[in-house]
C-alpha cells in the first residue's frame, strides 16, 4: 500500500483572532458590546504551523498473510530517514535546558524504578509508562507559571516532577500506600492538589479533563485572573465526544486551555490510522477556530517553545491553543502488554529518536553545555534521588482497612470553600426581582 502523502505545510500561523474590548473580562461572546460583531475565524488557507525538522511518512495498515491467514500490522514509509537535530529553542538558556534534561532523566529513572517495584511484587495493579514521551511531559509543564493549572494523563508522570511532586508520591500511588495523596483510594496519576501545585486529578475515562480544565480557567477568570490550564490527550483519547465538547467550550468562551495532543501512534493496540482520517490532528484546530501547531514530541526545545507561546497567549486572555506533539509510545499500553502488535521496524525508527538520547547529544556534543563528566555526575545524582525516593515510598505503611470509610461527602466543615483568587468583583444591574411570564409554547 502506498504511504500517506504528506502535503507541505506552511510556517506562518493561521489568523489570530483579536480579543474584543470586553470591559474587564475576556469572554468575547458574553461581554461584547451590544451591536458589535462577533469575529469568527474564516481562514480558508488551512495552514497549521509545523516546527518539526522532519516529517516521517510512516503508515500502518492491517495485512493478512496469504499463507497463514494471520492478520498483522505492517508499517511502510521511509524507515531509514536520518534523525534530525534538536531545534534550538527561542527561549531556553543553558541552565533551563539542563533543568529540563534533568527532569527527563528523573522521569525515565522513576519509571524504571516503578518497573522494578512491579517485578518485586510491590506495585498494586499495573504500571503505565511514558517511555519515549519524557520530552513532552517535562518540557510542557516547564512552561507553566506557578499559578497556572495542569492535569496530567497517565503517561505524563514527568509533569508531576516538574510541578514539584517528589518521585515517592507517584511510587506511593502505585503501591497504594496510606501516605499517597489519595490515601490509597486511587492509583497512578489519579490525584490532585488544589492548594499549592494547582493540579486536577484525571479519571480513567478519556477527554473528561478537557471541559473541567476549561471550567478552571472560567472560574479563575470570573475572579479576575487569566490563568493557563494545561492538559493532555492522546491520539486515541481525543476520539471521545467529551473531548470535542470541552475544546469547543474553551474555544467559544475564549478560555486559556493549552491542550497537548500526544500523538504517540498507538492507543492500546489501535494504530492512529484506525482512530481518525485527517492527516494531522492539529488540523482540527481550524475546525474549532483556535490556533494549532505541530511539534516534534521527542524534541524538548520544540515542545517547550510551543507550550510557552500557548501559555503566554492564555495569560493575555487570547484563548486556547492546540499543540500536537508527534512521537511514539515505546512500551505497551501498560506493563502487562508486550506490544507485539507494533511492527518492530517502528520501534527501531523511534528508538533512534529517544528524547533523552537526543537531548543528551544536544547538550553534551552540540552545545557543549555539559561535559561528559558533568553529564555522568548528573545521571548519578538523579539515580541517587530516585533511590532515596524509592526508600521513602517502600518503607511507608499500607492503609488500614477502615481507612476506606469516610469522605464521601464534604461535611462538618472539612473544607472551607472560598474563591481562590479572591471574591469576584461583580457589578449588579439596578433592576429588582420581578415575577415572570411563562414561555408561550410551554404553558
Amino acid at each position, binding site marked *: 500500500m502506498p504511504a500517506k502523502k504528506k502535503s507541505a505545510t506552511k510556517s506562518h500561523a493561521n489568523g489570530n483572532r483579536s480579543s474584543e474590548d470586553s470591559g474587564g473580562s475576556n469572554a468575547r461572546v458574553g461581554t461584547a458590546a451590544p451591536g458589535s460583531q462577533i469575529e469568527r475565524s474564516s481562514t480558508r488557507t488551512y495552514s497549521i504551523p509545523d516546527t518539526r525538522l522532519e516529517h516521517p511518512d510512516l503508515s500502518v495498515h492491517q495485512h493478512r498473510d496469504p499463507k497463514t491467514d494471520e492478520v498483522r500490522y505492517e508499517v511502510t514509509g521511509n524507515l531509514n530517514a536520518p534523525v534530525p537535530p534538536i531545534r534550538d529553542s527561542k527561549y531556553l538558556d543553558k541552565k533551563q535546558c539542563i533543568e529540563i534534561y534533568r527532569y527527563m532523566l528523573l522521569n525515565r529513572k522513576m519509571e524504571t524504578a516503578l518497573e522494578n517495584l512491579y517485578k518485586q511484587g510491590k506495585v498494586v495493579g499495573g504500571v503505565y509508562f511514558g517511555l519515549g514521551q519524557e520530552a513532552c511531559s517535562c518540557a510542557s509543564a516547564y512552561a507553566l507559571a506557578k499559578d497556572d493549572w495542569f492535569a496530567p494523563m497517565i503517561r505524563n508522570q514527568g509533569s508531576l516532577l516538574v510541578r514539584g511532586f517528589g518521585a515517592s508520591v507517584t511510587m506511593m500511588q502505585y503501591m497504594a500506600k496510606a501516605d499517597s495523596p489519595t490515601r490509597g483510594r486511587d492509583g497512578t496519576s489519579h490525584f490532585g492538589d488544589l492548594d499549592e501545585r494547582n493540579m486536577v486529578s484525571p479519571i480513567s475515562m478519556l477527554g473528561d479533563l478537557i471541559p473541567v480544565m476549561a471550567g478552571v480557567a472560567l*472560574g479563575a477568570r470570573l475572579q479576575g485572573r487569566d490563568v493557563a490550564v494545561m492538559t493532555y490527550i492522546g491520539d486515541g483519547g481525543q476520539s471521545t465526544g467529551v473531548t470535542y465538547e470541552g475544546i469547543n467550550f474553551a474555544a467559544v468562551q475564549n478560555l486559556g486551555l493549552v491542550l497537548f495532543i500526544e500523538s504517540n501512534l498507538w492507543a492500546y493496540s489501535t494504530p492512529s490510522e484506525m482512530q481518525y482520517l485527517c492527516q494531522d490532528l492539529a488540523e482540527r484546530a481550524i475546525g474549532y477556530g483556535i490556533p494549532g501547531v505541530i511539534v516534534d514530541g521527542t524534541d524538548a526545545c520544540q515542545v517547550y517553545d510551543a507550550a510557552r507561546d500557548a501559555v503566554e497567549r492564555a495569560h493575555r486572555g487570547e484563548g486556547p491553543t492546540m499543540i500536537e506533539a508527534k512521537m511514539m509510545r515505546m512500551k505497551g499500553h501498560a506493563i502487562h502488554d508486550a506490544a507485539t502488535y507494533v511492527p518492530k521496524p517502528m520501534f527501531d525508527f523511534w528508538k533512534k529518536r529517544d528524547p533523552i538520547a537526543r537531548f543528551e547529544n544536544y547538550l553534551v556534543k552540540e552545545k557543549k553545555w555539559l561535559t561528559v563528566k558533568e553529564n555522568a555526575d548528573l545521571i548519578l545524582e538523579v539515580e541517587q534521588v530516585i533511590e532515596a525516593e524509592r526508600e521513602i515510598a517502600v518503607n511507608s505503611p499500607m492503609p488500614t482497612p477502615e481507612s476506606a470509610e469516610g469522605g464521601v461527602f464534604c461535611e462538618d466543615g472539612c473544607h472551607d470553600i472560598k474563591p481562590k483568587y479572591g471574591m469576584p468583583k461583580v457589578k449588579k444591574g439596578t433592576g429588582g426581582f420581578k415575577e415572570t411570564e411563562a414561555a408561550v409554547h410551554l404553558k
Partner: protein
Amino acid sequence: MQLTYLEAIRQGIWEEMDRDPSVFCLGEDIGIYGGAFKVTDGFIDRFGPERVIDTPIAESAIVGAAFGASLTGMRPVAEFQFMDFIGCAFNQISNMVAKAHYLWDAPAPLVLRGPSGGYVHGGPFHSQNPEMWFVHNPGLKVICPATPYDAKGLIKAAIRDNNPCIFFEHKYLYRRIKGEVPAEDYVVPIGKANIVREGHDLSIITYAAMVHTALEAAELLSKEGIDLEILDLRTVSPLDREAIAQTVKKTNKVIILHEHSRTGGLAGEIAAIINEEAFDDLDGPIVRITGMDSAVPFSPPQEKHFLPKLEDIVREARRLKAY
C-alpha cells in the same frame, strides 16, 4: 408572599447570586432568553453576562466546566433544559464529580438543576424522572421539592452546600401551585423529610408532584374514615431514615408512591429501610404505587395509564386499610 413553585426557585437563586459573588449560572438559553421555562428571566440584566452564561449544547462540557470552576472556589448553578438530558453528562457526573471528594479530597460545590416529571404530554424525552441513577451514586445529593416554600429553601441550601447537589424541579408544579414564601432569608435543610399531613391509619411516603395527588386522595378518603399521613421526602438522597421509621411506627401501614418506573425505583430502597428500622411495627405488606416499567408515552390517554393516578392511591389505601 404567595409565589408559584417556579418563582420561588427563581427567587432563591436570585437571592443567592445577590448575596454571594461566587455563585454563577450556566446552561442553554438561560441568558437573554431567560431559560426555557424562564427560571433565569431577568438574571442577565441584573448579574451580567459573566455570571449568566449561555453554553453550547454540550451537557458534558456544562457539567465539566461547572466542576472545574468549583475547583477554584466558585459555586456554579448549571441548568439542564430538561432533566431528561442529564444522561448526556452521565460520565462527568458519575465519575468526575461524584467521586472527587472521596478519592482526591476535592469538594465540588455545584448545583445541577432542571425540570423533570410528566403529566404535561411531553413524551419520553421531556417527562423523565431520572433521579434514581444519581441516588445510586455515592457522593451526590438528590433533591426533589414539592412546595414553593421547600423549593426556595432547598435551592438556597443546595447552593450553599459544599457537595454536588442535583435539584429536580417538577415541571408540572412550576406554575400550577402557589404557596406562602417568606421574604426573609431562610433555608430548608437537605436530608430532612416533612410531614405535610398528619394521620393515623396509614402513611404515604412520597415526593414532588405526587405529594399533591396524595393530598387529594387524603381529602377523598377522609370522607370514608380513612386518615392518611403523608410524608414528603423533599430530599431523595440522603433519605431521612428517622422520619421514614417514625411514620411507620405511628401508623403501621405504608404506601410508597413515586412517579418514576417501578423496577429499581426508590420504593424498593425505602422498603428495605423500613425492614431495617421498623419491621416489627408493620401490620401489613409495604405497598408501592409507581410508574410503569417503560418509557413515558406521549399520547395523553397512554401517559395517564403510565403515571400513578388518584384512583390508584385511593384503591390501594382502601385495600391496605382493610388488611
